[in-house]
């Protein structure tokens, strides 16, 4: 699937650029994209290093496990394949909590930690996403954000009478997205099992 999407964007993009007579933008766009990727990864080093250190402490202190125990029933339903006391459960909860509170720069490192923990359970096919990983990503891309800080800031900047009035509609929309993501994940899991 990702192969088709990736190739499709490149091939279609180049054809459109050619037909519209500005083929010269392609090379620059490709290199710009590569540069953004490297910059993004490098700027992740600081926050990932920092949060991995803090998370290791939280794990050693037993806090991650305690958090995981707190929401065990929900997590058992969502991630039936993950052992109930596995550190992945705690990391997933931390990541989703950070997302809900709109703590973007803490959410990403915790998500990466969760992925690493899930990867430890994914021994026989390490280059293929496990079911738990797919569920985690579905939750993550559709995750509820209570405070969409950036957009509230922009609304304020352009003189909105009530910058936060969109919080209610945002929570509603994101809740719908997450519900459908969980349902779609379950259906697709069943379909892909027989392939």
């Amino acid at each position, binding site marked *: 699937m990702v192969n088709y999407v990736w190739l499709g964007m490149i091939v279609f993009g180049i054809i459109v650029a050619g037909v519209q007579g500005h083929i010269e933008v392609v090379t620059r766009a490709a290199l710009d994209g590569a540069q953004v990727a490297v910059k993004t990864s490098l700027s992740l080093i600081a926050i990932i290093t920092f949060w991995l250190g803090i998370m290791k402490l939280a794990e050693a202190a037993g806090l991650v496990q305690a958090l995981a125990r707190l929401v065990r029933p929900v997590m058992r339903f969502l991630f039936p394949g993950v052992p109930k006391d596995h550190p992945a459960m705690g990391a997933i909860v931390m990541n989703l909590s950070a997302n809900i509170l709109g703590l973007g720069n803490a959410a990403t490192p915790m998500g990466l930690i969760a992925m690493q923990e899930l990867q430890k359970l994914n021994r026989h096919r390490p280059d293929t996403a496990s079911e738990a990983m797919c569920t985690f990503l579905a939750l993550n*891309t559709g995750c509820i954000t209570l405070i969409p800080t950036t957009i509230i800031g922009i609304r304020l900047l352009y003189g909105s009478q009530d910058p936060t009035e969109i919080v209610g509609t945002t929570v509603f929309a*994101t809740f719908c997205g997450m519900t459908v993501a969980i349902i779609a994940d379950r259906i697709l899991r069943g379909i892909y099992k027989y392939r």
Partner: protein
Amino acid sequence: MYEIINQISRWAIPVMLLVIPLAAFIKRVPVFETFVEGAEAGFATAVKTIPYLTAMLVAVSIFRASGAMELVASWLAPALNLLGVPADIIPHAVMRPLSGGAALGIATELIKTHGPDSFIGRLVSTMQGSSDTTFYVLTLYFGSVGIKKYRYAIISGLTADFTTLVASIVICKVMF
């Protein structure tokens, strides 16, 4: 309500940074060594994401700069117009799963042009706030552990994106 949640967001990380090392210390964990041990993997994790992100962002960048994105948006316009959706928000809807920065740029532009309290302004705010950059999250998270086969993760991610889009339109029509 917003004020309470906002305060929680502001305090969450400082409180964590206070409680976690203290709790570890009380449990007789060697705090400094444990932090360093955990942090050690940070550099490698970030570097490992470079090839995956490069692959994805190069494709997104070509797709956008070539004008292909606008073309796809213009194909979607008639269908959405039937539902009473303003055509101005279509580029944002197409861009949102692909590039967070580009989508935010489009949202800002729309808010600037139409005003934050117009229907388009409120709709695009809701769309921006309620969705995430699916392809970026997929590439980054899977890339960090070397997953190359995403299986059905893209389909469920895009299903969620589409639902969020439809739900944003419906709720904004009802509320505003």
